[in-house]
């Protein structure tokens, strides 16, 4: 058994029924991650299917407008299926296939991870079932149909609060009924070990590329890298290869919803407490009796009551900084990026854009800041219109 924790965070808090499968997963992953054929096959898929490397785009108009550091956008929104989720999914579904599995399951909030998993399953010839909170299936009906087009079965989860955390519960329950032929493609850097490590490794391609790209363009490391954080997979991907570069600030942007002083937010670092849930010890929004809170964000992808264990560790050690961004700030940034750069980004990613609007003007012009633009915003257009009081038909 390898290292299962980041400081005190992480671990394997799961039912006994799943333990042997998790141990097996770790063994198989440790083998395949260094297997040249596997690595080669995955890299080929990332290049020829997902469209990697993704661009590091210099946002010149935004830079001029804000009048400070040079702003670069890591364009994960240009990947196949429209977000960073495909990086992890191709890795995990390929791994599942090597492990002899014939079926994959996944949770999804807004549907991005579900669509990515259904896509990889279609490509690699696996049976696929997606668990999605009933509330989310209503809010994201288009993504539900997209997954069905890709050949996946979508289960609307009616237990608990009927949103993302309940979808994770249901996926874990389903996995425990049939581990023999099924792999659970967890979508973020969360859950029991080895998932936080596996997902981080597959997402670390983001910072691996970004580091090379920024050195090529600027000749030096950036002042900061900024990403939105729900469970935290795009942020871990964006941070990972910069962790060792102590001069680079790592900034994660949490969903503050209607404000962290209201009860409508999903800010696990700002407002959460240490707890144990979904297989891991980390920060969670919860009450004094340890019951997990219902959380809220305009962004379904950040609407999760916890954060990955490695983020909890980076927070405690002070290596990364986590800031809350409200719905209003995120929506304004969403509109700003569309007008200024002609890019409609995901409302999740707009949380990172919002923070950079605050810090860039205060940062020296010779410095640079990279924003991880984790996804594209087509899925959010209708919700933003509603937020602004516009009546449109989807």
């Amino acid at each position, binding site marked *: *058994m390898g290292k*299962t924790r980041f400081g005190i965070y992480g*671990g*394997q*808090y*799961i*039912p*006994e*029924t*799943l*333990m*042997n*499968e998790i141990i097996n997963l770790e063994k198989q992953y440790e083998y395949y991650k260094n297997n040249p054929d596997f690595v080669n096959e995955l890299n080929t898929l990332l290049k020829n299917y997902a469209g990697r490397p993704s661009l590091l785009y210099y946002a010149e108009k935004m830079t001029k407008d804000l009048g400070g550091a040079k702003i670069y956008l890591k364009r994960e929104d240009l990947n196949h299926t429209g977000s960073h989720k495909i990086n992890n999914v191709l890795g995990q579904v390929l791994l599942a296939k090597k492990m002899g599995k014939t079926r994959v399951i996944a949770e999804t909030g807004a549907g991005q991870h579900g669509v990515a998993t259904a896509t990889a399953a279609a490509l690699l010839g696996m049976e696929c079932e997606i668990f999605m909170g009933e509330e989310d299936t209503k809010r994201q009906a288009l993504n539900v149909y997209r997954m069905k087009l890709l050949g996946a079965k979508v289960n609307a989860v009616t*237990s*608990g609060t009927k949103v993302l*955390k*309940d979808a994770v*519960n249901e996926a*874990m*329950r389903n996995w*425990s*009924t*049939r*581990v023999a032929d099924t792999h659970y493609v967890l979508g973020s850097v969360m859950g029991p070990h080895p998932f936080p490590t596996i997902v981080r490794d597959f997402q670390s391609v983001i910072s691996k590329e970004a580091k090379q790209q920024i050195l090529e363009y600027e000749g030096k490391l950036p002042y900061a890298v900024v990403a939105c954080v729900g469970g935290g997979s795009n942020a871990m991907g964006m941070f990972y290869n910069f962790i060792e570069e102590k001069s680079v600030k790592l900034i994660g942007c949490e969903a503050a919803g209607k404000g962290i002083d209201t009860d409508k937010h999903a800010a696990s670092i700002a407002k959460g*407490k*240490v*707890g*144990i*849930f*979904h*297989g891991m010890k980390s920060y*969670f929004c*919860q009450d*004094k*009796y*340890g*019951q*997990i809170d219902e959380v809220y964000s305009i962004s379904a992808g950040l609407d999760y009551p916890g954060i990955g264990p490695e983020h909890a560790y980076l927070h405690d050690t002070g290596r990364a900084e986590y800031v809350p961004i409200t719905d209003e700030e995120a929506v304004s940034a969403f509109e700003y990026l569309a007008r200024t750069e002609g890019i409609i980004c995901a409302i999740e990613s707009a949380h990172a854009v919002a923070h950079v609007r605050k810090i860039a003007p205060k940062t020296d012009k010779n410095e640079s800041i990279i924003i991880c633009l984790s996804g594209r915003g087509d899925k959010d257009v209708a919700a933003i219109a509603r937020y602004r009081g516009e009546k449109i038909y989807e």
Partner: protein
Amino acid sequence: MNRIESAFKNKKAFIPFITAGYPNINKTEDFIYKMVSAGADLIEIGIPFSDPVAEGPVIQESSQKALEAGTNLDNIFELVKKVRKTVNIPLVFMTYVNPVFRYGYDNFFKQCSLIGIDGIIIPDLPFEEKNEIYEYAKKYDIKIVSLIAPTSQQRIEDIAKEAEGFLYVVSSMGVTGVRTEIKTDLKSIIESVKKVTNVPTAIGFGIHSPEQANKMSKISDGVIVGSAIIKIIKQYGTDADKYIYDYVKSMKDSMNN
């Protein structure tokens, strides 16, 4: 001899489960008395959790309803304290790790010991993570009841070697809930257990009929029933007392004593 040992002494133990606070905390008290008088040998009291990942729909719903009714650890401790005045059979908590963690391990196990709880079952605290609570449970002499699953294989021996109280043998894959048929080779699992420990075994998950209880009691030391009882409470609500009594009695009588 501690209370858990005596529950298995020279007999097969029938172990009913009840969600504390479903439909309300006062009825839980009444239901416990009924189960005791119907012959329950040990009672599992469920501390409801918002996200019970090892439970099927029946216990999930009861947990949610109990929380909505205002059930919390403080009033559950009060309940047990009251019940303990007249009830002498072992009482074991069943919950998830977060409510225990949040309450504070030392404080939680201290309370358990003060009110007369004998053991604890935490399905999301596997063997590898047992150290999380071990020293506190030991300090206050609360037995940690471990689970063995159909997939445990080579882990059976490790888990059984450190077992205390009793061993909870999970009959089937998946979550709690009534099943018509149990296919796992439980006999060989229990044989592996018996090679390394004398700690009694009880089979749970999916058992609901007296026929199943009879069959399971032939290969193990006890039988655990949860969802079938919660279903009775769901059907009859605050009037479930008599039905719970009849059901527990029929199950206990069917066992191979």
